[in-house]
Structure formats: C-alpha cells, structure tokens
C-alpha cells in the first residue's frame, strides 16, 4: 500500500529532539518525523488518535455513570433526607470551583489552538500552565471542603454524627459525595500529570499545525473532567436550596 506522500509536508522549523532520533531518511520516502508507519498520513493519524481518546472517554462516561445512577436511586428513595444533607455543603466553594473549571477549559482550548496555529512555545506553555494552575486551585478548594467535612464529623464511617432529622440518608449522601467528588478529584490529579507531560513536550517545540494531536487529546480529557463537574455541582450542592436561605 503506497502512502499518500504526494501532499507537501511541513517539517518542524526547529529540529526537535525527535527529529534527531527519527532521521528523515530511513529506508523509504521521507515523512513527518511523528508519522507512525501504520498510518498513511498525518490527518489520518490525528483522526485515529482523537477517535481513540473518545472511545476511552465513553468508558469514563460509563465509569461516572454508575455513580450518578447510584445517586439517582438513593435520592429518589430519600428526597428530603438528601435535601437536608446537601444544605451542609458550601454553595460558594462549589460555584467557585465550577467557575474555575470553566475558565480552565477556556485556557485549555486556547492551548490547543496555540499549538494548532503554530504559536511560539512560550504561548503554548503559558496556556498549558494556566490550565494546570486552575486545576490546582480547584483541588485546593476541594481540600478545604474535605477538611470541613472531617471537622464537622460528617464523613461516613464510625465517627459520623448527624444533628438533623435524617441521619441515614445523610450518611448515604455523603458516601456518594466523597465517592463522586473523590473520583473526580483523582481524575483532576491525573489530568494535571498529563498536562505536565504535554507542557514539557510543548516547551521542546514538539507541536505545530502539522502535529498537535497530543495537546488536542489531552484537551479532550480535560474538557471531559470539566463536564463531569458541571453535572456534579447542581446535583450535590443545589438540592432544594429554596427551602432555606443558604
């Protein structure tokens, strides 16, 4: 099968470390140093990569979906209990975290766009570091919130104390709260780890308009984690808030 090399390629302007290890001539017609041999062209490779990440994200939808399902069942069983439990959450931390993640999605989108339009590495790294900083801020607020739960003895387990009318649903609610936000926070931590790798690659001038797939694919992961929080926030923090004034 002939590879479609009739189209013109833009090779990286500055020889990245990869170009040193992947010489242009290695037994067949030269191609972009990042083109894997089982692909015919860079666009095909990019499409395969993004499709692969989407298939993974569908498995993540299933992963979080299970927890959302559990939440649905238990909230349906004790709606007033869940409402009472939800009131103990600080709506302002939750809203702040939502805004932080939305801003981080914007900076991530700009990071992808910077690589896509061959911006200089400082620009790409600026957007990537901004995204990571916002992710870290999100985790910081989550740490504060978790500390408050431990302080107020509403962590499910032997030390759980509930002063309201529905202690059992409250414990169910907080089990789900820790499971869902904990799993989400774990994804954030992994996301920041992925971003670190991408940032280092960007600093080494790896990306340009011909090859920016790792940034795009890391972006897909980051946006997905944002979307999970977009649903977590109203379901956990905003149950029946109109019955009390915050």
């Amino acid at each position, binding site marked *: 099968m002939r590879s479609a090399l009739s189209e013109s390629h833009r090779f990286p302007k500055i020889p990245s470390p990869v170009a040193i290890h992947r010489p242009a001539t290695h037994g067949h017609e030269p191609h972009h140093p990042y083109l894997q041999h089982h692909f015919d062209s860079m666009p095909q490779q990019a499409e395969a990569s993004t499709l692969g990440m989407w298939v993974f994200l569908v498995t993540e939808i299933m992963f979080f979906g299970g927890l959302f399902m559990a939440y*649905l*069942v238990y909230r349906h069983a004790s709606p007033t209990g869940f409402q009472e439990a939800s009131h103990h959450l600080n709506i302002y931390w939750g*809203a702040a975290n939502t*805004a932080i993640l939305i801003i981080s999605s*914007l900076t991530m989108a700009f990071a992808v*766009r910077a690589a896509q339009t061959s911006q200089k590495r400082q620009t790409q790294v600026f957007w990537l570091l901004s995204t990571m900083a916002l992710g870290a801020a999100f985790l910081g607020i989550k740490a504060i919130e978790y500390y408050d739960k431990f302080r107020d003895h509403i962590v499910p387990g032997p030390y759980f104390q509930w002063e309201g009318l529905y202690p059992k649903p409250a414990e169910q609610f907080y089990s789900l709260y820790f499971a869902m936000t904990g799993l989400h926070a774990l994804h954030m931590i992994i996301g920041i780890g992925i971003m670190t790798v991408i940032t280092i690659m960007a600093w080494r001038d790896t990306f340009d308009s011909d090859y920016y797939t790792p940034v795009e694919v890391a972006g897909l992961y980051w946006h997905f984690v944002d*979307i999970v929080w*977009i*649903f977590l926030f109203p379901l956990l923090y905003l149950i029946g808030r109109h019955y009390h004034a915050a």
Partner: protein
Amino acid sequence: MSGHVAPKSMYYAVFAALIVGTALTVAVAFVDLGPLNNVLMLGIAMTKALLVILFFMHVRWSTRLTWVVVASGFFWLLILFGLTMMDFLTRGWVEGTWR
C-alpha cells in the same frame, strides 16, 4: 493537517455562555419552582455540556465516526438511567411490587 481553526471570539462566546449558565443555575436554585427546579438545572447543565462537547472539544467539526462514538456514550447513559428509574419509579403501582 490543521483541522478546523476556530476564531478566538468563538471560544470567548462559549465561555460567556457557560458562566451565564452557571450563574443562572445558582440563582434558580434559590427560587421555588417545584419540579421545574430540577428540570431547569439539569437542562442548563446539559446545554453547558453540549456547548463544551461541540465547541471546546471540536466535535462540531469532527468526522461522523467520532460523532457516533460520542453519541453512543450518552445513549448508553439514557439506557442506564431510563431503564433503572423505570423500575424504581413504578414501585408500588401494582400490588406486591413495593419491594
């Protein structure tokens, strides 16, 4: 390779919509609209998710194959929530089905 390069203004517009949606969600939570509260909050959340998926995640300009994979994920969720709640929401409708 390139792909579709969207103008920065589009990203800012989507961002503004997401922030407005969040503010709206918080505001609506403090007003008693009965069952409409949940409908509105989930509706706003779904719109925000759709905006992120279509524009930030570039699905708007992706191939149909990608689109089918994305849609299948949410179709799966529909089955999970739909069939499971179909059980729980109809408990007690027929004699002896409460447990």
